């Protein structure tokens, strides 16, 4: 790794310098880099052009050197060994398969809702329809943790009935849902037993017979070596090291090279073993040992110190010798960690034995143990290693002063002290090569495994027993109408998984398929690999750094496998032996945690342009806020709580640090909405009126303000939990500012050209009363001179003013409009001006309401305490306009009420009492009448006549001009009897004089309070108390009387 890094660093450095050269084609930079004395070079040339020529040559030299370096690195990186064994790392990292799972839910992951998991894969050859990836989904319910045994709580999890909860049960749980589709479980009885179940089968690739570990670990049924070679391999990818490993067991994988030992030697395990040799007893005379001879000579043969030699033994033992002896067990060949990079094998023996090339004599060690052994004497314990190649030692022993050679000298390994061949290898140490284990393919599909007595999943046959196990429809080949049944159970192309979600569910998917990465084998095959839903697997991660159950083997690219090391014709392949099923639990995903499928809410506000009209509740300022809740199927059960806040920044566009103030209480007090509308179950619509006063809003802006609508939506999903989400909407509200639109009467010149008259309707906030055929002028006040490009609407219809109507309209789009009040107008109509406010670069709207009134004059009491309208019916509250009442002695004040009010200024009034004209009242609009001189019951007939005024307000001369202007500008012909152009006529009221001394008829307003009406003025509560107590007393009293007179009552007492 370090070397690799160094090479990368070197390559990067060179590339950098090449770039630098392009920037600085000449100069000291690269000259110094290459240790060239440029000054020395330059000094050899007198002329500058010569200098440049020399520099050009230098540059070429340097470029050649760099190019050479880069080629070297390229060559180094493209040797077969590097690409074959480490091609997955560094510069050439492949597109390894990955899978990403996303979730969608119809009901925000509520209990019992349908949730869909979608797997998006990359790195697989998905376009290959025959070998589409297999998606093995697995579903772990909350109580289905892995368990060796079953309890009452998890017994339903054991779907394969093997007495424990395994990942296979999770797979079956998911596959059942996939195969059954939306129809739910079918049973065998749902189908005709003889019915053709159609084409349900799907034969997996690679076949489950080849990858037999997919369903059991028993013996396979491949009989020939070539059959094994044809079984597709499979691989796993370890991301940290960037290496892929072929899934393969390495047992019996090593082979010893045929020429690993010299001729006449064979590979063996040897170990040091104590050896007792013997020598001949030269003094031995057989007859001396005859019992008769011993007895006759009285020889002390039983004395251990007696060594006469003659009769002890023919052969005597020589102890303290060791020998190196074959154990009889052949050495194994294993991967050698020290030779990992060169895929070298290592011969190993069991226990303390050592692999060794042992001299073959054609003899069997068990019958001729002296072949291939070395003797030594003394304390040396490990003959095989320490004295491996030592010359033979002839064991001797002193015997009665004679030295005798031991008889156990035997075969020797070598007479050389060491023999090292030209390659620097010990010739007498056997060398082995890791070869592919024929039956070592550990690949298996991760399909759910069903009990063997029912069938094999993915074998292409889908029996009725399998149908019944999976709950598939026996009458069709595709129960879920999407895949064939066995395609569904193997997950063939099943990219989606929809199930009924219960809190605590976790799911995962593992995808198996062919990738676009070629295998190292010389057969054009591609790697079959797996991708896990979380792309993690501890089993695989363990392989990094050479750990875990991993190995390698060498395969010849050509037919000659003689060279044991990886070379041009050899390829080394790393292998690992692991069970991918163990990865599945690491890849469980909790959909609730990872998915973004949560209830959300947004607010839709209508209308788009909001207008605040203070103190008024109309359709114009009505706002409808609708909460749009997403990811919830049943919105009726949701609880909504609405809030409205105002921005303290006024007309400025709210930003993050804008302060918002809750105005719900103010709005409620203002009657903007009905109490209870702001919260409740299923209240997804909040209606309110924007009738807010400046006191509520604060007078920070005259034009507009911002509101923030909030809704808190709570979902009580029925599992004891509550989810609350918040939706907000910020809206801009324009203020109705009718005070900005001034209303004028108008006067006309003889040619019909109009001028503004007097200001009318100075009170803002209420409609301006006008009458038909009046010509009015409206002007929008613009103190900042910021408004321009006015456009106008009267009663919803576009209208305009120009210089032919009035000189005030000479400027197009000006702030003044003349318009006639048309008879076809609504009773209440609106004049709307829109203009561009250059100050805030925005269209502003100014409106003013008008109400149609019949022009006229009425007589009313100026002081209701002194004279009041007669009540038409007692207690009805309705009063007469023509008949008033007063008490004798009151000084009645009456006044003329003109509609529209502004017309009063152009009128003059004359009064009459009982038909007699009262000249002293003429010209006044309010008079006082004494009633002292009247009798009770007298009726006063008060008459009033209103005429056009002469003088300053005399419009008499105007009338014809205005008629002309109406006709000329708008084509309106006013009738001769139009009150607009005449006086407002005559009106009469009657005032009846009553007797003010009658207490019960005392002044209704308390003006004539007297003692007789005391009871009327008792506090209402006291009266109530009195009444109710009297009632109670009466009730009890009556009851007592009746009770006492009814015969038989209380007889028993």
């Amino acid at each position, binding site marked *: 790794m370090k070397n690799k890094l160094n090479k990368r660093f070197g390559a990067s450095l060179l590339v950098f310098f090449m770039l630098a050269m392009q920037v600085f084609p000449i100069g000291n930079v690269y000259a110094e880099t290459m240790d060239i004395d440029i000054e020395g070079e330059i000094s050899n040339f007198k002329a500058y052009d010569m200098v440049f020529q020399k520099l050009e040559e230098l540059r070429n030299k340097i470029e050649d050197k760099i190019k050479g370096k880069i080629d070297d690195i390229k060559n180094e990186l493209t040797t077969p060994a590097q690409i074959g064994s480490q091609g997955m790392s560094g510069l050439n990292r492949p597109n390894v398969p990955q899978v990403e799972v996303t979730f969608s839910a119809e009901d925000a992951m509520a209990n019992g809702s349908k949730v869909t998991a979608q797997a998006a894969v990359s790195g697989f050859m998905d376009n290959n329809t025959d070998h589409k990836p297999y998606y093995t989904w697995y579903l772990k319910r909350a109580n289905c943790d892995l368990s060796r045994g079953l309890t009452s709580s998890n017994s339903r999890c054991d779907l394969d009935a093997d007495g424990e909860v395994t990942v296979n049960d999770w797979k079956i749980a998911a596959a059942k849902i996939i195969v059954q589709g939306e129809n739910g479980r079918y049973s065998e009885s749902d189908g005709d037993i003889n019915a053709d179940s159609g084409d349900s089968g799907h034969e997996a690739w690679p076949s489950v017979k080849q990858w037999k570990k997919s369903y059991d670990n028993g013996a396979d049924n491949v009989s020939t070596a070539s059959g094994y070679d044809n079984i597709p391999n499979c691989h796993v990818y370890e991301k940290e090291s960037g290496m892929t490993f072929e899934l393969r067991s390495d047992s019996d994988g090593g082979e010893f090279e045929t020429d690993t030992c010299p001729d006449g030697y064979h590979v063996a395990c040897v170990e040091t073993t104590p050896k007792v040799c013997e020598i001949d007893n030269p003094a031995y005379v057989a007859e001396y040992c005859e019992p008769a001879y011993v007895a006759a000579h009285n020889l002390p043969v039983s004395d251990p110190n007696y060594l006469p030699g003659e009769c002890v033994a023919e052969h005597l033992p020589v102890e303290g010798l060791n020998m190196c002896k074959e154990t009889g067990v052949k050495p194994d060949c294993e991967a050698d960690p020290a030779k990992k990079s060169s895929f070298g094998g290592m011969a190993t023996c069991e226990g303390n034995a050592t692999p060794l090339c042992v001299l073959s004599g054609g003899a069997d060690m068990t019958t001729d143990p002296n072949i291939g052994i070395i003797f030594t004497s003394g304390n040396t314990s490990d003959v095989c290693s320490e004295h491996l190649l030592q010359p033979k030692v002839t064991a001797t022993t002193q015997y009665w002063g004679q030295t005798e050679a031991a008889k156990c000298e035997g075969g020797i390994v070598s007479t050389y002290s060491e023999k090292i061949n030209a390659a620097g290898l010990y010739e007498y140490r056997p060398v082995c090569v890791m070869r592919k284990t024929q039956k070592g393919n550990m690949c298996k599909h991760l399909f759910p495994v069903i009990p063997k007595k029912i069938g094999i999943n993915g074998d292409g046959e889908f029996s009725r027993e399998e149908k019944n196990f999976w709950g598939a429809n026996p009458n069709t080949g595709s129960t879920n109408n999407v895949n064939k049944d066995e395609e569904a159970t193997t997950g063939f192309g099943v990219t989606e998984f929809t199930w009924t979600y219960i809190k605590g569910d976790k799911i995962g998917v593992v995808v198996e398929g062919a990738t676009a990465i070629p295998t190292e084998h010389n057969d054009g095959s591609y790697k079959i690999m797996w991708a896990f839903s979380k792309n993690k697997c501890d089993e695989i991660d363990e392989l990094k750094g050479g750990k875990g159950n991993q190995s390698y083997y060498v395969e010849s690219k050509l037919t000659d496998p003689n060279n044991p090391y990886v070379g041009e014709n050899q390829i080394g392949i790393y292998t690992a032996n692991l069970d991918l099923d163990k990865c599945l639990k690491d890849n469980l995903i909790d959909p609730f945690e990872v998915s973004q499928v949560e209830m959300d809410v947004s607010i839709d506000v209508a209308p788009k342009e909001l207008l605040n009209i203070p103190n008024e509740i109309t359709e114009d300022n009505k706002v409808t806020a609708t909460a749009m809740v997403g990811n919830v199927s049943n919105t009726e059960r949701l609880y909504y709580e609405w809030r409205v806040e105002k921005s303290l920044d006024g007309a400025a566009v709210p930003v993050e640090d804008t302060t918002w103030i809750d105005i719900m209480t103010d709005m409620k007090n203002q009657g903007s909405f009905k109490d209870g509308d702001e919260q409740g179950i299923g209240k997804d619509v909040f209606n309110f009126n924007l009738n807010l006063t400046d006191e509520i809003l604060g007078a920070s802006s005259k034009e507009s303000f911002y509101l923030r609508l909030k809704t808190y939506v709570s979902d009580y999903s029925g599992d004891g939990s509550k989810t609350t989400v918040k939706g907000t909407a910020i809206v801009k509200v324009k203020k109705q500012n009718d005070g900005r639109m001034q209303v004028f009467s108008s006067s006309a010149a003889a040619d019909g050209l109009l001028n503004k008259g007097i200001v009318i309707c100075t009170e803002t906030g209420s409609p301006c009363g006008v009458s038909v055929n009046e010509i009015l002028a409206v002007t929008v006040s613009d103190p900042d001179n910021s408004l321009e490009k006015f456009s106008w609407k009267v009663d919803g219809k576009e209208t305009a003013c120009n210089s032919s109507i009035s000189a005030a309209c000479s400027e197009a789009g000006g702030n003044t409009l003349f318009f006639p009040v048309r008879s076809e107008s609504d009773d209440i109509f609106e004049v709307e001006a829109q203009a561009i406010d250059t100050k805030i670069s925005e269209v502003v709207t100014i409106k003013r309401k008008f109400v149609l009134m019949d022009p006229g004059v009425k007589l009313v009491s100026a002081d209701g305490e002194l004279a009041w309208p007669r009540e038409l019916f007692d207690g009805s509250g309705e009063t007469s306009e023509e008949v008033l009442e007063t008490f004798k002695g009151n000084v009645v004040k009456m006044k003329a009420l003109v509609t529209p009010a502004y017309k009063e200024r152009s009128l003059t009034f004359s009064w009459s009492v009982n038909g007699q004209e009262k000249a002293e009242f003429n010209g006044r609009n309010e008079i006082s009448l004494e009633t002292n001189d009247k009798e009770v019951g007298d009726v006063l007939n008060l008459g009033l006549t209103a005429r056009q005024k002469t003088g300053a307000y005399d419009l008499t001369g105007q009338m014809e001009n205005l008629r002309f202007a109406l006709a000329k500008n708008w084509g309106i012909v006013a009738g001769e009897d139009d009150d607009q152009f005449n006086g407002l006529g005559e009106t009469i009221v009657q005032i009846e004089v009553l007797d003010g001394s009658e207490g019960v008829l005392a002044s209704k307003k308390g003006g004539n309070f007297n003692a007789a009406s005391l009871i009327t003025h008792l506090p209402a509560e006291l009266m109530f*108390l009195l009444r109710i107590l009297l009632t*109670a007393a009466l009730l*009890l009293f009556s*009851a*007592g009387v009746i009770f006492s007179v009814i015969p038989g*009552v*209380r007889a028993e007492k």
Partner: protein
Amino acid sequence: MNKKEAAFVFVFCVVSLFIFKNFPTQNIVQVIIAMVLFFAIIPILFNKYILKRNLQDMGVRLGEPKKGLMWGLGSIFLALLLFALIFKYADLLNSYPLPKSARDSFSTFLLYESTVVFGMVFIFELFFRGFLMFGFLKIMGKWSIVFQAIFFLGLVVALNGSIVSFLLFLVFAPFAGWIALKSQSILYSGIAQFIFIVVLDSIVIHTLR
């Protein structure tokens, strides 16, 4: 109490409730005064001065605390169970009779429970269990429990009141009758009813939040 006397008492109750219904009131204070008078003071006076009985005959006594406690707790449990079913099958949460101010503020909730609810419980217990049920116990036996409950329902209907508004009192009326009958006191039925309403109100507020 013989049948004639019972009939007379019944007529008296009907008449006094008729007067209560039609007595003009203008504000809540007057309504409260009328309720206290017609449901508490008049029955007590009637009991004392006309029927010549003492207050204990109306169940205003200690009675049998053990039975009161036992049946009280049992009734609360059963009534809550009943309401759980009602909530499950009827959309009562939205129209549950609890003022919004009491839902929003804990102090208002306490004030509401200790004044309005307590007051209502007090007068209803005195009239329906104390006066009516104990009054008719002798001639009707246990049927007097049903009688007072039906009379209560009749009152609510006669007052044009919303059944929902009085649902808690209506549902608990038979339970209260049973408790009062078993414990011979309206003390326990009143306490049980009060606890039941407070607990249910609390549950509803918790659920709505």
